[in-house]
């Protein structure tokens, strides 16, 4: 009788051991990551990280540092990720400062502008080349593999030092002409009046978004200006949006889809020009297609 049991007791023991092993490894003492890189952050924490990178860029104007920081998040297209986040923040009634900062950084990453829009005009971000950074310590994305440790074990200072010793932050040395200069933010105010409407033209084209109100904002020298707040109001509502959130088109570009039959008023920035009676109307294209027209408005700083 006993002989007929064969090796089943071994298999049973193996399965019990396997079950206990997995229970211990996955539930009781799972692998715990204590030295994670930013790209492993949860999506909402990544958003906060991105917003903070933009805020820091707004403060120091150091595009290289901002780019290195964004690279830590491993977004496919950092500028696009910033613009998309800015749109989300805008839709969720987020703060103006956050949206402006992200729009500015998105535009800067695309190499389009170096200007920050403000309610009173524009401010040029001074180039940092004559300033500064003697040494920048920036964590690099390539060295950011998380270190698994066992839960329950205390991360000792030695362990932390060990991690640091094996993959220290890369220090990038940038020689400068002076050693006393500090990496300070320098805004160079550009005096100028609020933006004024330069042209307003109907757009009657097939194959494009119908009823699209396209707005472009330029400074006195014709450069696109991101981060300009635009407010569209109509009977029963209003909406705000910013230039620079579609940097692939133009850093000074923004758009809004109008509903046919509704009359809109567009206001640019605080105290800027107000354009009234904007509407999407039926029109016929050059090749006899019936579509709903859009509008293209160009605002320029005199």
């Amino acid at each position: 009788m006993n002989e007929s049991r064969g090796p089943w007791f071994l298999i049973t023991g193996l399965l019990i051991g396997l079950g206990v092993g997995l229970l211990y490894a996955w539930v009781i003492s799972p692998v715990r990551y204590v030295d994670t890189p930013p790209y492993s952050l949860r999506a909402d924490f990544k958003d906060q990280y991105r917003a903070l990178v933009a805020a820091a860029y707004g403060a120091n104007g150091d595009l290289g540092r901002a780019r290195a920081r964004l690279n830590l998040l491993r977004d496919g297209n950092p500028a696009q990720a910033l613009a998309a986040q800015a749109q989300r923040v805008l839709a969720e009634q987020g703060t103006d400062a956050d949206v402006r900062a992200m729009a500015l950084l998105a535009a800067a990453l695309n190499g389009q502008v170096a200007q920050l829009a403000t309610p009173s005009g524009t401010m040029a971000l001074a180039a940092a080349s004559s300033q500064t950074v003697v040494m920048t310590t920036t964590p690099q994305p390539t060295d950011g593999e998380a270190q698994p440790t066992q839960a329950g074990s205390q991360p000792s200072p030695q362990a932390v030092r060990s991690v640091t010793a094996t993959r220290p932050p890369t220090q990038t040395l940038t020689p400068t002409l002076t050693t006393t200069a500090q990496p300070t933010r320098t805004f160079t105010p550009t005096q100028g009046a609020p933006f004024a409407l330069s042209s307003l033209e109907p757009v009657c084209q097939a194959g494009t978004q119908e009823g699209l109100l396209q707005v472009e904002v330029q400074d006195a020298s014709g450069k696109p200006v991101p981060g300009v707040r635009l407010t569209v109001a109509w009977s029963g509502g209003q909406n705000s949006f910013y230039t620079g959130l579609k940097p692939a088109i133009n850093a000074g570009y923004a758009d809004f889809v109008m509903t046919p039959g509704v009359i809109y008023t567009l206001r640019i920035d605080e105290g800027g020009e107000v354009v009234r009676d904007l509407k999407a109307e039926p029109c016929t294209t050059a090749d006899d297609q019936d579509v709903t027209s859009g509008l293209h408005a160009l605002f320029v700083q005199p």
Partner: protein
Amino acid sequence: MSRRSGFFIAILLGLATGLLYGWVINPVKYVDASPDSLREDYKVDYVLMAAEAFHADGNLDLAARRLALLGDQPPAQIASRAQLAARREGFPAGDQEMLDALVAALRVFTPVPATVNPGPRGTP
């Protein structure tokens, strides 16, 4: 080898296989980490970003809320640790000054209590 010892050896073998699979081959993957699990140098850089933003906007409450993501300790303590790390790592003087300013401000910082809506008042 007796049947009993074979049974226990099989359990140990299974245990070892389970641990190998759970810890090495297919460990728990953390893809939604929180900022407090960031590596120390990333945390320092995060605090530096908050210090840079504070340097520009002067919004201490916002800076404290940003730092609160990095752990349960008071923001001043988090900033102070980053300040020490920045000195140890030889950060540029400008960065250290911004961290110093943030730490100094946070030491005397009193968080703004959340506003409570008292609700509509009764009318006589």
